[in-house]
């Protein structure tokens, strides 16, 4: 048994050495877990940030000016005042997402209680801003009008029921918190698949796998060695990134337990490295592997709940994606890191990852055993 484990250990150390001999790769790994995380975190605006808006003010009244002044950073860019004729061309060119038209005689009609309409044009191809933004614009217009009116008419009672709405876990809805952690989670998946898969193909292309096969080493040992070496590198990178970049540089308060996150990441890595090895056994060489990887990674990253809410995706996509370990990893990581959830809260996801990882491992080991003789 000791000899068995020692083989696994030696083979894994060998993987680490080969990584060390590739300085470009090391720099790239450091970059993805530091600068890239930082860039992604700081680039993402707060949910509605600097939304470009244009106002067509045909009323030119104190009220319309009051409305125009209510749009300011950070939610909106200072509005550009345009004429009716510029609306279409400006929207076509994508210069602004919103165009608010205040008709002539607006203030007069408001004061007369005629409830006039303002028109809001929204560029619906910018989905993310379109939804949130139009709500914001409506509310701002309403608030300004109410405020304006209340100065002229008294006795406007406040609403009898007040809704006190708070955001939990991220009270100011700071996007950087979200972006930084999601970037690390994405990197963990990406790097582990590449490292494990490419390492195997490299052995095949350089003929070293042949050497391993004549030695007293089993396929299981070879595979476990690749899994632990990859997992070790990725976990270390994730840990440093979390503590140095996310906590120290970006000042994100991580409430949850980093240890628990790393444990979940370890389970996840078990699944993704198996996946990488499986892909390596399926592809005939590095070019095929590279392509296969792009095709796998894109949906894994876009559809696991890291970019858009998981529950809002169509049912069948949700079904397909729940077979992917990333969906559970993202959901568990969000729970642990953002909401300080403990094992009692995330055990279902952990179980799911373990089961998926176990299946992937057994499956790719079988496939590896089958193809290994053809690799030599």
């Amino acid at each position, binding site marked *: 048994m000791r000899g068995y484990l020692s083989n696994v250990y030696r083979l894994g150390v060998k993987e680490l050495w080969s990584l060390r001999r590739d300085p470009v790769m090391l720099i790239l790994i450091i970059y993805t877990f530091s600068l890239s995380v930082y860039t992604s975190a*700081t680039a*993402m605006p707060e949910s509605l940030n600097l939304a470009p808006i244009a106002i067509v003010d045909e009323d030119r009244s104190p009220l319309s000016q009051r409305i125009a002044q209510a749009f300011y950073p950070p939610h909106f860019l200072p509005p550009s005042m345009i004429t009716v004729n510029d609306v279409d061309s400006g929207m076509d060119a994508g210069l602004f997402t919103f165009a608010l038209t205040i008709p002539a005689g607006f203030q007069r009609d408001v004061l007369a209680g005629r409830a006039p309409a*303002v028109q809001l044009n929204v560029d619906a191809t910018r989905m993310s801003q379109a939804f949130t933004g139009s709500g914001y614009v409506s509310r701002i217009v309403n608030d300004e009008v109410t405020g304006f009116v209340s100065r002229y008419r008294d006795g406007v009672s406040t609403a009898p029921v007040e809704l006190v709405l708070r955001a939990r876990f991220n009270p100011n*809805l700071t996007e950087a918190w979200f972006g930084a952690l999601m970037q690390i989670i994405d990197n963990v998946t990406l790097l582990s698949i590449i490292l494990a898969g490419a390492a195997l193909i490299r052995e095949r292309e350089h003929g070293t796998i042949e050497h391993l096969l004549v030695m007293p080493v089993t396929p299981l040992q070879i595979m476990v060695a690749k899994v632990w070496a990859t997992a070790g590198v990725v976990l270390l990178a994730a840990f440093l990134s979390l503590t140095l970049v996310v906590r120290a540089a970006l000042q994100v308060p991580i409430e949850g337990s980093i240890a628990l996150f790393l444990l979940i990441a370890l389970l996840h890595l078990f699944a993704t490295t198996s996946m990488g090895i499986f892909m390596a056994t399926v592809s005939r060489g590095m*070019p095929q592997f590279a392509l296969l990887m*792009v095709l796998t990674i894109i949906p894994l990253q876009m*559809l696991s709940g890291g970019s*858009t809410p998981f529950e809002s995706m*169509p049912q069948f996509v949700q079904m397909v994606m729940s077979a992917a370990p990333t969906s559970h990893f993202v959901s568990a990581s969000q729970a642990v890191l953002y909401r300080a959830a403990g094992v009692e809260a995330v055990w279902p996801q952990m179980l799911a990852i373990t089961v998926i990882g176990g299946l992937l491992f057994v499956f790719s080991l079988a496939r590896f055993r089958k193809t290994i003789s053809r690799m030599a």
Partner: protein
Amino acid sequence: MSDTVTTSVARLRGVGLRYRKTVALDGIDLDIPPGCMVGLIGPDGVGKSSLLSLIAGARAVQTGTVTVLDGDIGDTRHRDRVCPHIAYMPQGLGKNLYPSLSVEENLQFFGRLFGHGPAERRRRIDELCTATGLQSFLDRPAGKLSGGMKQKLGLCCALIHDPDLLILDEPTTGVDPLSRNQFWDLITRIRQARPGMSVVVATAYMEEAERFDWLVAMNAGRVLATGTPAELHAQTGTNTLEAAFIALLPETVRQGHREVIVPPLEVGDDEIVAIEARDLTMRFGNFTAVDHASFRIRRGEIFGFLGSNGCGKSTTMKMLTGLLDASEGEAWLFGQAVDSSDIGTRRRVGYMSQAFSLYSELTVRQNLVLHARLYHVPAEQIPARVDEMVERFDLASVLDKLPDALPLGIRQRLSLAVAMVHKPELLILDEPTSGVDPIARDAFWRLMIDLARKDKVTIFISTHFMNEATRCDRISLMHAGKVLVTDEPAELVRQRGSASLEAAFISYLEEAVGERHAPDAAAPVLAAETSAPDEGGGRRRGFSLMRVLSYSSREALELQRDPVRATLALVGSLILMFIMGYGISMDVDNLTFAVLDHDRSGTSRDYVLNLAGSRYFIERDPIRDHADMDRRMRNGELSLAIEIPPNFGRDLRRGDQVQIAAWVDGSMPARAETASGYVQGMHQTWLAQMVRAQLGVTPTPSVEVEIRYRYNPDVESLQAMVPAVIPMLLMMIPAMLTALSVVREKELGSIINLYVTPVSRLEFLLGKQVPYIVLGMLNFLLLTLAAVTIFGVPLKGSFLLLAICSLAYIAFATGFGLFASTFTNSQLAAIFATMIGSMIPVVQFSGIITPVSSLEGVGRHIGEFYPATYMVMVSRGVFSKALGFADLGFAVYPIMASVPVILVAATLLLRKQAR
């Protein structure tokens, strides 16, 4: 080619070369005479290959001057001018060939590179192939040729442009004697036809060097002596070149050398059979690689395996090691049937494969230690064992070097050391001494004999060296998968009545082939040398479309040979578009919520029903208490929790101010924002209804906001996402297709063709790019078609504009892949660099989800410079907004401009010479 009287074809003055700390060449002064056959001889790692690569211009000159064909090879202009007159064949079997391309395609590729027209190419290819006997193998992929044929093809590729200077680096290493003879005959005939051509050859075979006109003996980066073979003999007073060379060596090196003496094998009564094979057969498809091979090898015997390249020796050895499962027949090692899952037997066997297959990323020492450990050599013995191997194989000076930096011969020694580190009882060695210099070979044999005679280690060895074969106890001759004969070497010579084993070997082979291999007398080797060599387009400077196309057609052929890749790119992108188009949803709905209702009145239930009835919210079981709320929000079950205070209904009716508390899960800010909007909106609606129901008055809103969603009136995610997914896929897939193209040539060695042929860096890159641009455009058409038909996203604007922008965009994407490929040194790093360089900016910074104008910091700048941003604008503009060039011009120019930028960057990073 020159009017001046040339006294030397290459002149070196004070030439030095270092690889980091290692000195490869040390102050070389040398004049190589023109028009003759010059041989470089010397042990491994003395700088022969470095010297040749300097003369060929493949490697940059560090110190000193190298004058080749009357000009300084360090000068780029001169190098461009003379490189069509130099041909260079690097070390290693078929190193500069493309294995997936056929013989014909390889030759066509080189012909185009040197600018020959179709008819000219046909004539030259036919001529060369007739002369070399490759004519009947034109359709065979180069990778499937035997070693000897690969070298002949390499020679043809080198000769296709009528060089004045032919540089061959160990061309016959690893080639069987028959093919080797043919190879040198061929060179002789070519030289007869082209007397002006100078040939410089490095070789490890002293008997070959004996036939050369002029020799350069090298050792430790210096020239020991120069002169004709006769002069060297005279100088040293020896009659063989091997002896002469040993005599030339410094005393210290020479000391270790002794004559190899083989004590006879003592066959005891207790004869143990180490290897037995009975009717071993291996078939690959309908090709029989090994055909009923049978033999018995006794313990302690040195058993030699001889045969031409590709006759099945390696396959037989692989079957014995369990690497390949035999199609038929059986084999036993130490009386146990070979079983690939039997770990115990593996420990008793040491194996060395033909190709170098150790870890090039581990140092010599690390390789030795790793293998010792994997073979479970007890930890306390490892240092001693490693030291022993290092001493036996003379590896002390390279202990901390990486194998890639070592010459072939030393790498072979390392492989051997690794195969023996665990002291196996049986050694299976596949051409272990190929490429190893004579002195090291003798040392190696002394060791083997020692092992076999003293430690009773059984040695099963294949070789091409006849003097090695004579040292074996018995040898088997193999041809075309069959064992022709097995006996003692002397007995074989006697049976055939030949003068030497080599003659006996050739005679057996010829008998088996059934024809005599006299040089094809008919072959008019390039006799019809009518074309003036200098007329070739290869001389033309500047940009050549032909050379671009040469690389393009090569790349296209490779793409064609691997149809899985192209299919994967096309079908995969369609599937991805499908999943992403439907899957990425900006809609926020199906939000889960639950209520902590302290009131439980009709009013509070009414409030909850108002929320639950909306399509945005799904109600879950009521919350029991605050702890329950906390738990369920933490594990993500609830996105929204609402708490209604006690006496809510009563207080409301009384007209008291009441508060409802709501908590949104803020961990996903965008979702939280939208959810808050929904809750507030519904709260207002409920209030209005309540006021109307209870007070009977309709509160008039003082203003109404009419919202018009433009371009996508139903606000469907699909309509917005499909035009954005297309630029995303067109970036990532073409980039990944080209990402490996350069780095792969670096890893496999064919990058040398860039170094020594007239192709420029830009031509090289453009040529590689073209086929992938074509594939990318095909992909674009397919995606657009799918968008319009399957997804029903109407294409409202100008298709032509979209197509033109896509073309430029794909050119950028493929250029980006090449760019990533030029600055990385491993395929792993190239894939990773392409991945993070394309996916992260496209997904996050190019406006697919968040408009670039709303981004901040560095990300925003990336978005502003990255062409994907503009392609997303064009795609959305054309698909959804029916825009044309007039409106989108501002986005078209950046896309166009990005193409030359990325190509220039890639060109600058690519090197035209090795360093």
